[in-house]
């Protein structure tokens, strides 16, 4: 064998091994699952594809936990992991599914709304692939994903993403962003099919309220807030004022811009009779000028660069040495969601939604969100779902 051929064989072998070593953690992450226990309030678990058959068998087809009350009432659709790198909403809704009981009305809960995004990552930013939440019985491991669906599930990207049906030109990557593809279409891009299925669920089940749980940078003006269109603004304002007065945390209201298309807080209200709300909790991990993107930063939200910027009044939220811990963010989501349901129920008593067993802000901050997760090893196997 001549020298040139030997060199080529060695190079192919070395690059093949390096590629395989790099691929194994990503493969495991993509194929890992998170156990969720359907708690006492879950009456059935359906698939999103029940409302859009073109989603069946794809990465976009997810479980929807249905929590029906003894009394009929209003209906709410709650979703987390629209952006899977903003996990406070996922933790809040998982605590809801595992603990809450609906007394009146019905909740539809989609934990990993962008399932493909929750199996994606952002290697250029050095994202961790998982994070752990301590509980009384051990650690619960969660996948940490990315803002956009994986190109393994939706490819190729267009040069410019043309929103359907408004035809607004958006960034090419927004075709994989489930907060730009609302209201979707049955035979469009995979993420358009995901949002279309959710729209069909809301239209067919006559859902009154939709909540989309997010996180936003401390340097981004639309943070620590409820984003609401005009039709949801009164309820959002009442919820904002009540949590400030009764629970002592800020969560202002931002108007949903009428000319920015594809967002849940815009299109759900425009293409269904549902009142949409999008909740943003500050997440320092997403800010650009931070130290390394570690699990510690994700959990405690403490960063010296942000602290320095806060002293120069460059942030849109208060920020001190305590950072913005995960429990605080999850607690805010929980209390704001409960308050929105309460305010909606006050205005619409015949369509009211009442639930119990879901902790509020102070309880989550005091106990830690891990207290509300149950051990899947001790649960009835029939009640354990893998997301």
């Amino acid at each position: 064998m001549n020298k040139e051929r030997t060199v080529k064989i060695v190079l192919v072998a070395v690059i093949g091994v390096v590629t395989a070593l790099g691929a194994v953690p990503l493969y495991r992450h993509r194929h890992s699952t998170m156990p969720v226990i359907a708690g006492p309030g879950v009456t059935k678990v359906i698939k999103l594809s029940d409302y859009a058959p073109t989603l069946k068998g794809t990465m976009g087809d997810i479980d929807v936990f249905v929590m029906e009350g003894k009394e009929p009432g209003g209906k709410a659709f709650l979703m987390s992991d629209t952006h899977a790198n903003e996990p406070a909403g996922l933790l809040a809704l998982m605590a809801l599914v595992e603990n809450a009981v609906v007394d009146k009305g019905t909740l539809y809960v989609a934990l990993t709304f962008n399932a493909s995004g929750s199996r994606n990552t952002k290697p250029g930013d050095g994202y961790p692939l998982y994070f752990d939440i301590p509980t009384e019985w051990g650690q619960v491991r969660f996948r940490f994903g990315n803002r956009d669906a994986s190109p393994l599930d939706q490819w190729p990207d267009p040069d410019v993403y043309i929103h359907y049906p408004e035809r607004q030109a958006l960034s090419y990557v927004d075709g994989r962003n489930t907060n730009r593809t609302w209201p979707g279409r049955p035979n469009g891009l995979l993420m358009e099919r995901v949002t279309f299925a959710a729209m069909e669920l809301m239209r067919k089940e006559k859902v009154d309220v939709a909540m989309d749980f997010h996180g936003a940078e401390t340097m981004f003006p639309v943070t620590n807030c409820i984003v609401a269109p005009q039709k949801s603004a009164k309820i959002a304002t009442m919820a904002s004022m009540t949590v400030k007065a009764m629970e002592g945390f800020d969560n202002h209201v931002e108007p949903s811009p009428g000319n920015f298309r594809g967002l849940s807080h815009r299109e759900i209200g425009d293409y269904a009779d549902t009142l949409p709300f999008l909740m943003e909790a500050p997440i320092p991990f997403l800010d650009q000028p931070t130290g390394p993107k570690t699990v510690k930063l994700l959990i405690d939200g403490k960063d010296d660069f942000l602290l320095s910027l806060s002293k120069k009044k460059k942030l849109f939220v208060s920020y001190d040495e305590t950072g913005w811990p995960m429990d605080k963010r999850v607690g805010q989501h929980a209390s704001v969601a409960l308050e929105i349901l309460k305010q909606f129920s006050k205005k619409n008593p015949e369509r009211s939604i009442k639930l119990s067993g879901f902790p509020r802000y102070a309880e989550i901050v005091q106990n830690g969100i891990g207290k509300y997760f149950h051990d899947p090893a001790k649960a009835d196997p029939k009640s354990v779902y893998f997301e």
Partner: protein
Amino acid sequence: MPVITIFYYLITAFIVGMLGWNFWHEKKSVNDMILYLLVIVPLLLRILRVK
């Protein structure tokens, strides 16, 4: 599969073919051989549809 996706797969296959041809015919520069291999990896994975 949409027509545009089929075209993208064909383009990818063409580029893989060109890179493979260049790698095979490169006689001297080890640096270029490594570069061809590095560039070909994601394209090859796409064609093989490895997820």
